[in-house]
């Protein structure tokens, strides 16, 4: 089972479903699901086999190389699983909308492009798949018209800047080493001067930084995520921005290699510490902004930017524990963020609104979605029995033991910020009082519940037995040249502090049973309706008694002076100054021919004068 | 100070009687239709605080007497000490059957709750009042309670004594 068949299925399947869509909905849905499931199956059975195959397609003599190793396998399996679940979710989410065939075409194309990126062995094919991914994402973001178009425009402008930087870096590599095969570049880059390596790092760093929403380049993400349709924003924040992570991994560990990367620059100004600092800042500031959002998807978008900061911090820090923590957090984030976006999508599908101030009390109406969100936010926070905890524990342990407590402080403070905004999400949507107008909404359809159940189970299983994914991540670490960690099925044993999730799990289980018995000890409790709550003796009115509005108002009042969005303002300032500059240039082309003739004559006279005076030629 | 005010009042308005029991109190009684003009005049003269609006039920002469007590918030010119701060009580009489009166919220906005109370307890309708809804009482009364012909003992007899004690026979 070789790679090119995999890509042919992925890329061939998209137009096929589009054509079948013309004839009948049923076949198209069935075909889309079957194709993505087959992709998952093919990638799964490729486990362990690492292969490299080159195809000379006569493209300026550059070989199109497809290769598979542990790192790309790990990313490929995550991409295909999240892609399949989002397609299953969108079966009933997109049913009523127009242009559904186009939607499925684009969804399959995005997943295929991401698989392509991960399997690409040389920079040219990497770049081609990168462009396909960016453009199909742009078309999907601006799927529902209106503000989505502006969000899509913002996304595509920043992606193009990233791609241009990527192109520049790629060309300079080709000029200096006249090969674009990643493994060959890795072997030969050692000879380049450190200045040149710094240039390569910044060029590719900008490209991957924009896609991974590192702090200065993050402004496109909140708009893109909140305007895109829910299943796609799950893929967008679950796996698409993780292509930036894959890029960073490729750049820092495969192409440049760790020793060179750590050696660049001195002390605080080295590329390594700048990237760590960027990662740490990316954790803290978006988390605080996420607390004050009132739109559920925008809140999750800002939280994605924050969690991406953890991954960057993990990868940039450089020890094998940090790398394991970073990659494991990528895997967890893909799972729980997709779960949360599916939950918000299911709520939006039923109540047609995402505004946190007008929702409430849906726990009884949509229990499966509620439990999914609960598991999702526990993983987001890092509560001990979920996989989120293990990856954060790895990152914190190495940050503290390697002696950089301030980065650890940023990361740990981010956790409490995560608690605040994730509790706001679950409280304003599921707990509290059910407003009058949502009294009779039904459950969400099964095709929406299935992805949530699968993801919740995955989070809990990997939380209790983190050994399974950690074994693969350890293999990635060893492939990068680190010495391997001794991974047990339920954690890591090392002399400076072992993690033992089985102990934690059994302790929590016993404690829960104990407190449940204590709870049963008391007299039986009467269940009561939501109107019967204490309100100083008055009767609680049912319609306008909503109090989840402005949930963290004291915090907002305290931080209001610092809340001006500086970075976004800076970009808009650049855009407006360019537009005014262009305006002044347009005055020259006034449109009648007389002016043009005059310009030519003027220019000729200047040329003659220069030639007479200095005789350049 | 109040000497000149009394002359000014009597000169501008006809059939008005002013009497001042002590030096800082003036009682003004006037016809019901030029009460609003007097109130506006007094407000311009510096009496910008309507302290109280209440009614008295003269059941023998079959009439309600509305009393407006006016004073000034910050009469801070130095010679008026607190003892001499001037109070004006403006009285007017309206018939007892179907009592109605024009609202003064136009001149004194803070009269709004007073007028609602008058309506609820005396049954005086104030035309033009923004919301003439009950203010204090919980139940409806056919004769408003503050009227002299309202027999409170009889009302208590009907309303509360009729409610039986709870005893164990009707489980």
């Amino acid at each position, binding site marked *: 089972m070789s790679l090119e068949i995999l890509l042919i299925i992925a890329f061939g399947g998209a137009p096929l479903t589009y054509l079948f869509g013309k004839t009948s909905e049923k076949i198209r849905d069935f075909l889309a699901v079957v194709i993505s499931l087959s992709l998952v199956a093919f990638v799964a059975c490729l486990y362990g086999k690492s292969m490299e195959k080159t195809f000379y397609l006569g493209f300026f003599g550059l070989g199109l190389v497809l290769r598979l190793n542990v790192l790309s396998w790990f990313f490929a399996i995550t991409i295909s699983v999240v892609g399949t679940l989002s397609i299953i979710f969108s079966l009933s989410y997109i049913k009523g909308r127009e242009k559904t065939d186009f939607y499925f075409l684009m969804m399959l194309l995005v997943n295929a492009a991401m698989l392509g990126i991960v399997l690409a062995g040389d920079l040219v094919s990497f770049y081609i798949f990168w462009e396909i991914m960016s453009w199909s994402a742009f078309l999907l973001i601006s799927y529902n018209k209106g503000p989505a178009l502006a969000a899509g425009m913002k996304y595509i402008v920043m992606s193009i800047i990233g791609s241009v930087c990527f192109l520049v870096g790629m060309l300079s590599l080709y000029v200096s080493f006249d090969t674009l095969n990643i493994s060959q570049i890795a072997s030969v880059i050692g000879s380049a001067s450190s200045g040149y390596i710094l240039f390569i790092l910044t060029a590719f760093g900008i490209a991957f930084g924009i896609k991974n929403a590192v702090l200065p380049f993050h402004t496109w993400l909140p708009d893109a995520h909140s305007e895109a349709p829910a299943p796609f924003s799950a893929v967008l924040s679950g796996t698409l921005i993780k292509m930036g992570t894959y890029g960073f991994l490729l750049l820092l560990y495969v192409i440049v290699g760790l020793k060179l990367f750590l050696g660049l620059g001195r002390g605080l100004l080295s590329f390594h510490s700048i990237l760590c600092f960027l990662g740490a800042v990316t954790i803290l500031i978006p988390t605080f902004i996420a607390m004050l959002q009132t739109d559920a998807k925008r809140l999750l978008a800002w939280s994605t930017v924050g969690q991406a900061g953890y991954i960057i911090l993990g990868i940039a820090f450089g020890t094998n524990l940090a790398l394991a923590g970073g990659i494991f957090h990528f895997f967890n984030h893909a799972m729980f963020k997709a779960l949360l976006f599916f939950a918000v999508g299911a709520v939006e599908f039923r109540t047609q609104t995402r505004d946190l101030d007008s929702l409430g009390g849906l*726990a009884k109406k949509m229990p499966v979605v509620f439990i999914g969100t609960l598991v999702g936010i526990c993983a987001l926070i890092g509560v001990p029995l979920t996989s989120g905890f293990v990856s954060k*524990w790895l990152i*914190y342990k190495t940050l503290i033991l390697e002696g950089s407590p301030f980065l*650890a402080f940023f990361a740990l403070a981010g956790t409490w910020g995560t608690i605040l905004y994730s*509790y706001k999400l679950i409280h304003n949507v599921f707990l*509290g009082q059910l407003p009058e107008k949502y009294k009779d909404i039904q459950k969400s359809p099964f095709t929406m519940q299935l992805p949530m159940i699968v993801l919740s189970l995955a989070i809990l299983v990997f939380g209790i037995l983190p050994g399974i994914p950690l074994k693969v991540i350890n293999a990635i670490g060893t492939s990068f040249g680190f010495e391997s960690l001794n991974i047990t099925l339920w954690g890591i044993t090392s002399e400076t502090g072992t993690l033992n999730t089985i102990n934690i799990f059994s302790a929590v289980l016993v404690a829960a049973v104990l407190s449940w018995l204590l709870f049963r000890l*008391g007299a039986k409790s009467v269940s009561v309706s939501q109107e019967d*709550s204490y309100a100083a003796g008055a009767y609680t009115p049912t319609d306008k008694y909503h109090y989840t509005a402005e949930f963290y108002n004291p915090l907002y009042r305290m931080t209001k002076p610092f809340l001006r969005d500086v970075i976004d303002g800076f970009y808009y300032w650049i855009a407006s100054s360019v537009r005014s500059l262009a305006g002044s240039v347009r005055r020259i082309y006034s449109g009648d021919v007389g002016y043009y003739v005059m310009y030519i004559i003027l220019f000729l006279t200047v040329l003659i004068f220069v030639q007479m005076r200095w005789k350049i030629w | 100070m109040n000497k000149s005010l009394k002359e000014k009042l009597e000169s501008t308005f006809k059939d008005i009687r002013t009497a001042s029991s002590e030096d800082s109190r003036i009682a003004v009684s006037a016809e019901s239709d030029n009460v609003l003009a007097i109130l506006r005049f007094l407000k311009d003269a510096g009496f910008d605080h309507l302290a109280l609006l209440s009614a008295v039920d003269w059941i023998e002469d079959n009439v309600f007497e509305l009393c407006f007590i006016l004073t000034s918030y910050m009469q801070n010119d130095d010679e008026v000490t607190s003892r001499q701060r001037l109070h004006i009580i403006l009285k007017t009489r309206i018939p007892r059957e179907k009592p109605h009166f024009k609202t003064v919220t136009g001149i004194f906005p803070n009269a709004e709750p007073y007028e609602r109370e008058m309506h609820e307890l005396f049954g005086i309708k104030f035309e033009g009042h923004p919301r003439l809804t009950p203010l204090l009482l919980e139940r409806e009364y056919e004769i408003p309670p503050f009227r002299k012909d309202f027999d409170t003992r009889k009302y208590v007899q009907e309303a509360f004594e009729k409610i039986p004690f709870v005893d164990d026979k009707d489980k």
Partner: protein
Amino acid sequence: MVVKITQIILSPILALVVGVFFLGLARKIMARIHWRYGPPLIQPVIDMIRLFYQKSVSHGSMFDLGLILSLAGSIVVVLFLPFGGIAPLSGSGGLLVILYIMLLAPLGMALSGGQGANPNISIGISRKLILGLGYEVPLLLVLLAVMTRYKTISIMEVVIAQQSTGWSFISFPLFLSGLSYFLILPAILGLRPFDVSSAPQEISSGPMAEYGGKYLALATIEHAFVLFISIALFVNLFLGGAANPAIFFVKMLVVFVLGLCINAVFPRFRIEQAVKYLWKWPTLLAFLGLIITLAVRS
């Protein structure tokens, strides 16, 4: 193995006894400060017996499970925390696991309170979380200072290190961190100046507004555990954590009584004042402590 089993069973019971004793002591000392006799020391036990016999009202399954989750979280933290000689599970995760499981208690209480559809509860929970954000900043700086000072993340090693090098509360750089931890102790416990999240007068006891009989009993038990945990953490990290439980209990008693006497005389902060205070003085002390430990270490 048998010793470990007995320790696992013994430490939550011991923690509960000490916590409930501290609750009774707090009410007695508070009464004495107000010139009153105050209730007997076992008044919390009497209250709990009464509450267990009283019927109560529930607002749905999350209302019950959230409270059970929060109590379970507190019990588990006690297992990870060495109490004198007894340290059942402190080997499998260290301070980071404790820090994370301490999140379970407020999260569980918030989830269960959220289901009880009452505006007082929501305001109480939002204040409790903001206050948590407030005291978390200095707490993290303090814990990081201790961890970098002893270059380990497990509490047992910190306690053993203190046997040899003397109490870290005395050694210079960590004195500032210890002081900062002592200043934020009332915020963690929700004692007098920082009980803005469960203020009985303003928001009718915040998250506990809808807690009836057994729910209130479980909430007080969980509060007793939190009381035990935060003081035991202080004693372990800064006062050298004793070899046998008796000395450990005496140290906890001193810390608790000192803290209570200082805080009983303060009026209640507004939530902004509380967070501003927490981010000003304790954070400054903790930050200085961390900087100096880093300077001393390198």
